[in-house]
């Protein structure tokens, strides 16, 4: 599956762009930096902000890659339609835009491949259907949200509760703002400092086994290894509340980090969770060198929003 995907994209990339950004396709790290102890060097500050949608929109069905002109048009349109300074569209939509555009930082460019979705496998660019079990779980969650939208803090999302940012990973997916990551390396370790919500994800590379299955963590339990020039990170032991588009606690997440040039890491992840998805699926997201720095994102400490939201719910009940 991966193989087929790689071959297809290689053709596309070969036509459209010299110097592919996809994993495994880069020249085997020649000219790329290595750490003093010989590991490929992924260190630096990176952002994965992009306006390329995660899944391919229905309107682009069948179209895997944009032309340069289409891409430019798309970028221009996105600026307009996503502009939070836009005040049209009715009350709730306007409310949902929350605040001025200057607070947002979701990128202005499509990904370098001009693919029409970050999901690259299945080839339709869409997350595969949920299994009946996962559908049931999703329905139960929706029902719970409907019945008790704000009875207590646990009814709210992990992001609202300042526990876990849904896009900060793993896996790392572009979000509305602060899409910033710092990668540091030491012999035997790779550490990914994520701005959202201030997590230092420490990944051992020494081949140790995963933590006992009884230990469940919001961000799972990650183990890394080098596969040629690519860092491969396998993460398991997620909690049953960690939820990547419907995934369950037994999701096995495999991430690949390949530095393809001084300013780009090709980042891909594959979600393997038969209990939740009818097939495994993969997304590819370039990480681009950014200036930084990573700022403190103290979330819970200033989470007036939770108080306001619950107080509002209580007031409405009366």
């Amino acid at each position, binding site marked *: 599956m991966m193989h087929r995907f790689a071959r297809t994209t290689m053709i596309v990339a070969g036509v459209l762009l010299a110097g592919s950004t996809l994993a495994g396709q880069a020249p085997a790290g020649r000219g790329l930096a290595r750490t003093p102890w010989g590991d490929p060097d992924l260190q630096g500050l990176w952002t994965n902000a992009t306006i390329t949608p995660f899944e391919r929109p229905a309107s682009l069905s069948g179209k895997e890659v944009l032309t340069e002109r289409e891409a430019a048009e798309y970028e221009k349109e996105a600026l307009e339609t996503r502009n939070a300074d836009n005040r049209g569209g009715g009350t709730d939509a306007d409310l949902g835009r929350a605040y001025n555009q200057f607070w947002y930082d979701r990128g202005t460019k499509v990904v370098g491949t001009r693919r029409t979705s970050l999901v690259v496998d299945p080839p339709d660019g869409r997350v595969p259907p949920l299994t009946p079990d996962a559908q049931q779980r999703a329905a139960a969650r929706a029902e719970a949200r409907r019945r008790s939208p704000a009875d207590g803090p646990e009814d709210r999302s992990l992001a609202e509760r300042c526990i876990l940012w849904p896009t900060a990973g793993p896996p790392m997916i572009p979000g509305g703002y602060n899409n910033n990551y710092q990668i540091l390396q030491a012999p035997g370790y790779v550490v990914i400092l994520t701005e959202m919500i201030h997590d230092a994800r420490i990944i051992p590379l020494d081949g140790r086994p995963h933590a006992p299955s009884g*230990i469940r963590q919001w961000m799972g339990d990650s183990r890394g290894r080098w596969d040629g020039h690519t860092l491969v990170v396998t993460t398991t032991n997620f909690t049953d509340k960690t939820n990547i588009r419907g995934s369950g606690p037994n999701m096995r997440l495999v991430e690949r980090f390949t530095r393809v040039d001084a300013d780009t890491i090709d980042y891909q992840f594959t979600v393997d969770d038969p209990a939740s998805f009818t097939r495994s699926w993969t997304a590819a997201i370039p990480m681009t060198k950014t200036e930084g720095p990573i700022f403190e994102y103290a979330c819970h400490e200033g989470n007036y929003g939770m108080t306001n939201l619950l107080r509002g719910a209580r007031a409405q009940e009366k």
Partner: protein
Amino acid sequence: MRTRIRGAIVACGAAVGLAVASLAVLPTASGQSSATYKAPRSAFKDGKPDLNGIWQANNTANWDIQGHAARQGPILELGAAFSVPAGLGVVEGDDIPYQPWAAAKKKENAANWLKLDPEIKCYMPGVPRATYMPFPFQIVQTPTHILMAYEFASASRTIYMNSKDESPADTWMGWSRGRWEGDTLVVDVNAFNGETWFDRAGNFHSDALHVVERYTPVSRDVLQYDVTIEDPKVFTRPWKMSMPLYRRVEKNAQLLEYKCVEFVEELMYGHLRKKTK
């Protein structure tokens, strides 16, 4: 303004970098080979390694000897300060071979932790729990007696070296007899009363508990601690725990008192306090 912020952030980033660097040089327990380390000898000139010192485990086994994720603590008001830190566990294979009835009892213990855990009442913690509570203990070693003095509840026990004496009755801290196997202090502990637990997760044993502890110096400041647990009334087979114990290297290290009786009197006797009118 911008510069100042940046300076602070850079410092912050440097701290992360340092933390990463220090991760890399942390020795792992398996990396410390007792075969290559020769401990200093006892001042008693009996040729035995000198285990004197103040030691402490640095893990969360007292919360749960098995692997466990972090979880909320039982007292709402204590919030994050007294919630439960995660730990990889210290049990070999992470599996405790309970008999079926005992597995059910363990669950019940965990569910009623606050009511049932003897630690909460300041009872002496028994062995091996005393070793890995979050308190230091001091080893006082002579050729015939090795005293283990624990800070928690002023508990202590004497290890009688090469002794055949039996305990006259059941006890909280057990009856300890020791011997040397090379540089390893091997302690056989029995005569438990069955009232103590292994941790705050409800792991327990009966009065048939038999503990064999092994203390092996693996570097100047680390003892490797391996324990075999046997209790035919509760488990289907013997099982093991192991962990490093670290020396408290502070120059002024000393055991202070943790006489917790007075901390639990209101809890235990409060209902008998005279009501003031």
